[in-house]
């Protein structure tokens, strides 16, 4: 015997003590302890520990079976009564279960989404130690996700604190040929072999790292391999990029999960990047994403502190650069990219943590509404059963038995509701996924928290809604119950009213939120952006060296296009007017101290006219002034103002301290980026050769014919251009896709919540009307009118609804103004919105109430009074 007695695991012991059969009467607990000690002594504590747990867990199901076997008869009776009750109040049970199930389903769906969004990039093995290097320019508020190409190598050379560093860069819209077939790929990655040291990207075939050192090999994801080669063996096959470069497939990687901030489907070695883009790999230009894997125990702050020295050595080469003009580099945990990062040059559009908070709270609110509703209806209904309780008591039921019966019954109901809601989730998930463009799965095995959640909903809602009837009704005196003196159940009324009010507060907040989002979206849609959006077809030519022939002959292309009667005008540009984000040349006017960072665009003669951008002073680029090709620039009013120029037209402006531009015209300010951002200073150059977009204004008639003419014409100049056109107004509204989705989703949930809340109200009025049948009958006999009675029955609920409105307004106002702050241009939350949401809720609620009230009020009093 050891000196110190070994104690079995506490939790398991506790669990055992709940099963009274095993612990006291039969002394199983003692047996287990005795044997536990024996095993601990012989084979070690660990084995004994596991053994104990195993014995206890195994005992649970047999215990339950035993209980049911012997307590069977009573249990069967309870079950039968529960089902009979359900059948007796069909509509009531339906409302109750449907509302609750819908609420839980909505909650589970949102939580699945939230969990998915939070799980981004979490699957990488060393996710805690993976960082992205981001850059901050002097005088810029927003950081850049991109860094110079040589940075990764410098990091590897200079810092022993990191395991590895790697750069990568994505290239959008690329045509890849495989034999005769052409595919347009959305994203191709240029990567360094070290990428595989940092991220967990499992290989299926081939050695990925060696593959990425050979300049002419390509790595495919599983789905790409299948797309190009089907069942055939992909390794060793040739893919042709841009009609010139042949790449041999050297590796296949597993499909990367959708919850990654980048998804590599095609990757070629980074060494090729200059060939494709014509961009040199200098320290000056930021265009790659640099990631690094930190050694364990090193804090990112320590490394960040060493960045200035690194930059001095490599970027500034220890030359005299003013401290305030230097770039600053920071480390960003890779986990935080998806939800917290909105820097310039992100690989994909990221989500925002704000929306995650918003959705979580909506989910929670809906769950609360659903639970309240459920409890409300269950308690209301249970009062009708006081007679049953009376009889049970008279024939000898104990209070404990009654409590068990009621709680068991409500657990059964909750269980049914949860089963229904899980079915709803499984059915709705594909639609929900399509809408959100995510691949959420409802998988209980992978997400144990779901089981926990469901079980806790069952327990919480079941126990809470069952406890009122269980504790209250079971304590009543049977004589009183049977004489039906307590049938009003007045003690629960206040509680129920507060619950209903809370429910409506939440509903009104959600409705107001939906309205505000709607109004803001309409505001965006109808706001005068300062340029035209309608009837413009846009063709995108992404890469600099691509389609040289077309770019060199762009004027001929335009003349060709204009021959068609359906084409009004055509223009080329680097950026479209709704998204001018490239470059940030430093402008300075007369005062050399005033340096303005502007956004730049490169356009041709027709761009300004095509988009209807207003020139307030001076003139547009013109064919009549050949000198415009050299140094003429257009500024917008904002740039003029910030540069503090007076009478700007005709004056010169210094660009980046080197060039001079002659200002020939001033553009009226237009929204050159989304309305989230304020208008920035703009500078336009004349340079049609740097085109990325061809914009074609067409007339409304015979659009299909015009489009096919455009296609033929473009094919003549760029035979391998996979013809894809977009309408500018559609591209424009796509920028607000997140908000539009949010609006729709919010609307759907607000709708759901009002439906649930009204179901609750309906049930409650049904109940009160039923309770007051006799009262109504007597009132009618004494001469009360129908309206009078409707008022008596529904007046009180209306009062509570109004109270709910007044509480809801400040909450809605506060939360929605927070949301609106993310827009630089936004609506004011006016009183009108509140009035609208109030009348909407009142209207729906009154319809709900009056159905029952009118039914009660118009009933023949003879029927209701003859009731005894």
């Amino acid at each position, binding site marked *: 015997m050891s000196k110190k007695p070994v104690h079995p695991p506490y939790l398991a012991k506790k669990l055992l003590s709940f099963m009274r*059969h*095993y612990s006291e009467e*039969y*002394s199983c*607990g003692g047996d287990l302890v005795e*044997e536990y000690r024996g095993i601990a002594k012989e084979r070690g504590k660990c084995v004994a520990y596991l053994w104990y747990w195993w014995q206890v867990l195994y005992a649970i199901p047999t215990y339950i079976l035993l209980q049911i076997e012997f307590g069977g008869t009573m249990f069967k009776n309870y079950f039968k009564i529960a089902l009979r009750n359900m059948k007796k109040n069909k509509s009531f049970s339906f409302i109750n279960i449907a509302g609750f199930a819908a609420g839980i389903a909505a909650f589970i769906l949102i939580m699945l989404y939230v969990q998915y969004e939070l799980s981004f990039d979490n699957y990488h093995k060393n996710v805690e130690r993976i960082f992205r290097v981001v850059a901050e320019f002097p005088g810029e508020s927003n950081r850049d996700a991109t860094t110079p190409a040589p940075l990764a190598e410098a990091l590897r050379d200079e810092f022993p604190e990191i395991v590895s560093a790697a750069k990568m860069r994505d290239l959008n819209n690329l045509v890849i040929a495989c034999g005769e077939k052409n595919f347009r790929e959305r994203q191709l990655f240029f990567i360094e072999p070290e990428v595989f040291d940092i991220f967990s990207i499992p290989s299926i075939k081939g050695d990925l790292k060696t593959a990425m050192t050979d300049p002419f090999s390509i790595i495919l994801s599983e789905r790409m391999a299948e797309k190009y080669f089907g069942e055939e063996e992909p390794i060793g096959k040739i893919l042709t990029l841009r009609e010139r470069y042949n790449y041999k497939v050297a590796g296949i990687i597993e499909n990367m999960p959708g919850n990654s901030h980048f998804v590599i489907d095609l990757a070629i070695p980074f060494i090729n990047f200059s060939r494709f883009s014509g961009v040199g790999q200098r320290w000056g230009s930021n265009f790659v994403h640099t990631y690094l894997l930190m050694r364990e125990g090193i804090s990112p702050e320590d490394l960040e502190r060493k960045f200035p020295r690194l930059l001095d050595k490599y970027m500034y080469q220890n030359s005299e650069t003013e401290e305030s003009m230097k770039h600053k580099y920071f480390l960003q945990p890779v986990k935080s990219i998806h939800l917290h990062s909105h820097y310039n040059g992100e690989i994909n559009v990221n989500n925002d943590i704000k929306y995650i908070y918003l959705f979580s709270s909506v989910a929670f609110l809906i769950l609360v509404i659903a639970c309240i509703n459920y409890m409300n209806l269950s308690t209301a209904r249970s009062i009708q059963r006081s007679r049953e309780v009376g009889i049970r008591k008279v024939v000898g039921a104990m209070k404990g038995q009654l409590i068990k019966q009621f709680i068991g019954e409500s657990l059964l109901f909750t269980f049914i509701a949860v089963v229904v809601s899980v079915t709803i989730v499984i059915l709705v998930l594909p639609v929900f996924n399509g809408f959100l463009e995510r691949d959420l799965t409802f998988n209980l095995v992978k997400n144990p928290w779901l089981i926990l959640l469901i079980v806790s909903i069952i327990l919480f809602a079941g126990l809470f809604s069952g406890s009122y009837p269980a504790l209250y009704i079971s304590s009543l005196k049977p004589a009183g119950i049977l004489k039906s003196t307590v049938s009003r159940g007045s003690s629960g009324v206040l509680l129920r009213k507060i619950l209903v009010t809370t429910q409506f507060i939440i509903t009104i907040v959600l409705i107001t939120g939906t309205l505000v989002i709607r109004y803001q979206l309409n505001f965006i849609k109808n706001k005068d952006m300062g340029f035209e959006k309608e009837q413009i077809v846009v063709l995108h030519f992404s890469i600099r060296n691509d389609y040289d022939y077309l770019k060199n002959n762009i004027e001929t292309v335009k003349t060709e296009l204009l021959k068609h009667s359906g084409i009004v005008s055509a223009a080329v540009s680097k950026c479209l007017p709704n998204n001018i984000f490239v470059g940030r040349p430093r402008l300075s006017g007369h005062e050399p101290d005033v340096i303005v960072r502007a956004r730049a665009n490169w356009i041709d003669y027709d761009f300004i006219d095509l988009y209807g951008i207003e020139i307030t002073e001076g003139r547009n680029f013109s064919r009549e002034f050949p000198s415009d090709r050299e140094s003429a620039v257009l500024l917008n009013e904002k740039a003029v103002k910030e540069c503090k120029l007076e009478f700007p037209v005709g004056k010169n402006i210094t660009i980046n301290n080197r060039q001079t531009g002659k200002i020939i015209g001033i553009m009226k300010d237009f929204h050159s980026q989304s309305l989230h951002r304020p208008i920035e200073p703009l500078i336009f150059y004349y340079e049609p050769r740097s085109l990325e977009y061809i914009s074609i204004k067409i007339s409304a008639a015979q659009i299909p014919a015009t489009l096919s003419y455009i296609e033929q014409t473009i094919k003549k100049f760029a035979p391998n251009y996979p013809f894809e056109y977009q309408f500018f107004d559609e591209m424009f509204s796509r920028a607000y896709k997140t908000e539009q989705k949010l609006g729709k989703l919010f609307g759907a949930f607000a709708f759901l919540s009002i439906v649930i809340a009204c179901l609750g109200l309906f049930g409650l009025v049904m109940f009160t009307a039923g309770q007051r049948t006799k009262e109504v009958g007597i009132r009618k006999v004494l001469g009360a009118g129908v309206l009078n009675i409707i008022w008596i029955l529904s007046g009180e609920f209306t009062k509570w609804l109004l109270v709910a409105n007044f509480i809801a307004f400040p909450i809605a106002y506060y939360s929605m103004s927070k949301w609106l702050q993310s827009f630089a241009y936004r609506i004011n939350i006016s009183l009108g919105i509140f009035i609208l949401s109030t009348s909407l809720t009142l209207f729906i609620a009154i319809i709900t109430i009056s159905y029952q009230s009118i039914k009660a009020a118009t009933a023949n009093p003879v029927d209701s009074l003859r009731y005894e």
Partner: protein
Amino acid sequence: MRELTVLEQTILAAIISLEDDAYGVSIRKIIRKKTGKVLMYGTLYRALDQLSRKAFVTRKKGKETTERDGSKKVYYTVTSKGKKALQAAYKLQKAIWDIIPDFIAD
């Protein structure tokens, strides 16, 4: 009356063989030693519970001991009813195997 299951027979036999010392641990131990069957406590107590509900066994509390964390041992004895049932079971078994007496020999 329902016949005894093999498990019940085993447990009854074990209790009889243990005489005055038949409680959970010892019953489980002797069954393991004699038959090689390892019973889970859940199974054992479920069977003991059923046996005592049918009055085949009676329970008696023993003295408190420190090594069992203060829980008393519960001793089992087989009632005459239980013995009869066990005998009946034995007769049945024997009758079954008498049908094919040579079968067991090899």
